[in-house]
């Protein structure tokens, strides 16, 4: 079954990749692309289109880099694996993960990702990344310092920063960056992703068909999604507030554990620290929870683990927009329950 799925996925990817054109107005499902809708109205929302004139650039190559960390240019051998520790999908989803793109709400995201069967991750989905104008926002400057400055307004620099610092890997070649960008343009926002009232839809439709109301349509569309991904690093909760576990919802905690923690830790997927559903594991996490240890869920979720450049995998920290204090408390409640 999995092999058949893989073959079908490859064929679909090949077709999508070969037929991809950043100037396409509609995607393969007939949904109008947000970027093209705005452009049709006369508003160029972003200007980081891929440079397809560079030899070897393609969305297929970009997808390989994003999903598998490998790339190949025709007539050349495979490039060196981008990172020996991570791939983009270690921390980023490739699908829409928020029900309302105009807010960043981890509670709503958990329910939405559960429904879609995708993980809850510490980094923002790459779906719609090309529709954003700002990157490494909020407190990422505290983590990466001046490295953030060139990346904040430049998606290519952001891709490189992600490759080298976040993924602890090598810098991408120009043709690889453009390929990643080309792939990201295959997962850009569509009009159907935005929550529009009937009245707003009529306004947008009028503007797109060239019958006026352009300014109104632009304002509506631009208000329906975030052009940046907010990220605020907060201190771990005070242990005194949660030691009785009266605030947590264990069932919700189970969802966090299985959709977020398991993504990296189940069967040592990306981490040497294995997590499973055994009582041994829950007892361990429960014992460590109230300590100032990297094995405390409060500490490690908020602070992550220490990274050594290019040397080791590490755990990224979850900004409050990616996991709320309540979700952490829910997780604690689940761990406590399962360790009994």
């Amino acid at each position, binding site marked *: 079954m999995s092999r058949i799925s893989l073959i079908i996925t490859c064929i679909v990817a090949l077709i999508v990749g070969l037929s991809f054109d950043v100037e396409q107005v509609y995607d393969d499902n007939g949904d109008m692309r947000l970027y093209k809708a705005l452009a049709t109205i006369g508003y160029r929302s972003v200007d980081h289109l891929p440079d397809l004139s560079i030899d070897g650039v393609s969305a297929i190559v970009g997808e390989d880099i994003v999903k598998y960390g490998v790339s190949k240019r025709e007539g050349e051998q495979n490039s060196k694996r981008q990172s020996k*520790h991570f791939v983009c999908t270690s921390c980023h989803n490739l699908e829409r993960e928020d029900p309302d793109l105009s807010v960043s709400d981890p509670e709503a995201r958990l329910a939405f990702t559960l429904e879609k069967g995708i993980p809850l991750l510490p980094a923002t989905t790459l779906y719609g990344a090309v529709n954003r104008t700002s990157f490494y926002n909020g407190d990422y400057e505290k983590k990466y310092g001046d490295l953030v400055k060139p990346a904040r307004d430049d998606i290519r620099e952001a891709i490189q920063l992600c490759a080298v610092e976040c993924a602890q890997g090598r810098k991408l070649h120009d043709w690889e960056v453009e390929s990643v960008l080309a792939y990201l343009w295959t997962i850009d926002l569509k009009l159907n992703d935005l929550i529009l009232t009937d009245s707003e839809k009529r306004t947008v439709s009028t503007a797109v068909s060239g019958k006026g109301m352009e300014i109104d349509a632009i304002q509506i569309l631009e208000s329906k999604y975030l052009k940046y991904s907010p990220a605020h690093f907060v201190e771990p909760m005070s242990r005194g507030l949660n030691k009785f576990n009266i605030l947590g919802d264990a069932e919700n905690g189970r969802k966090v554990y299985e959709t977020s923690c398991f993504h990296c830790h189940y069967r040592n997927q990306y981490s*040497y620290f294995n997590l499973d559903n055994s009582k041994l594991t829950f*007892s361990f996490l429960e014992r460590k929870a109230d300590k100032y240890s990297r094995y405390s869920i409060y500490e490690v979720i908020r602070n992550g683990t220490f990274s050594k450049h290019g040397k080791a995998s590490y755990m990224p920290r979850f900004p409050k927009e990616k996991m709320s204090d309540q979700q952490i408390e829910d997780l604690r409640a689940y761990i406590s329950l399962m360790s009994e």
Partner: protein
Amino acid sequence: MCLSGAALAQDGAVYGTFGDRRIINTQSIETLPARKLDFRIAHRFGDLAGDAGGWPTFYGLENAADVLIGFEYGVTDNLTIGLGRTKGAGPLKQLINIFVKQKVLAQGYNNMPVSLAVVGMTSASTMQKSETEGVLHFFDSPLHRWNYHLGVHAARKFGERYSAQVSTTWTYRNIVPANDENTIISLGLAGRAQLTKAIGIILDTSYPMSSLRTRDNGFYPVLGLGVEFTTGGGHSFQMNFTNVEGLSETDYIPYSQSNIGEGEFRLGFTISRLFSL
């Protein structure tokens, strides 16, 4: 039946039957994940007690019966290769050991009751050729430097705490002392009881099926008992007590001549560190 790496990695297969690729002396059914390099150092001190132990040798800590420095690498999730150098505790020393381990069955995958791994290894003595005819390292032929070992290991994990393994091994030495046999078939048993997420008690034993390898002839079954510590950072540390001196199968199985009853057992440890490649 030999399953592909992808197949065995499917959900349903039991994970972490043992914490390490070796139990104490015996190979376990565990293989390294693909593209992981394991650097390991193992040490066997001298006799804790008996004639060669006690205070004069600080209970064996001042002696090194055997030392292993080696690398293992996960070619796929189910195929591990290894290269290591051991000092050697038998008559042949300075051993270069090469092994290949293939996991062929995984417990839980397709309702398989056990996991099964096959290990093939060879060791070559690199010690200097002796000028004295009649000793093993006279090396009349270069082939006399070589020994071989094949092991079939079947293991099952019972719940989250307990694991057991049964092994059948074949060991062949190209040259042996007078009145000894080239081929030794052994049966092995091993187990693990996980006390906490990080700490487990491990034990293993190996019994040669040979009429020559009796107590009367000065041979004893291989016994080992240890504590295994695993961390979340890719480290594994093991402390053990065992009666055998050698660290490679071609060394400790044929030359298991230490009698625990006379204090001829030793402290040992293994440090393992994983690296991503």
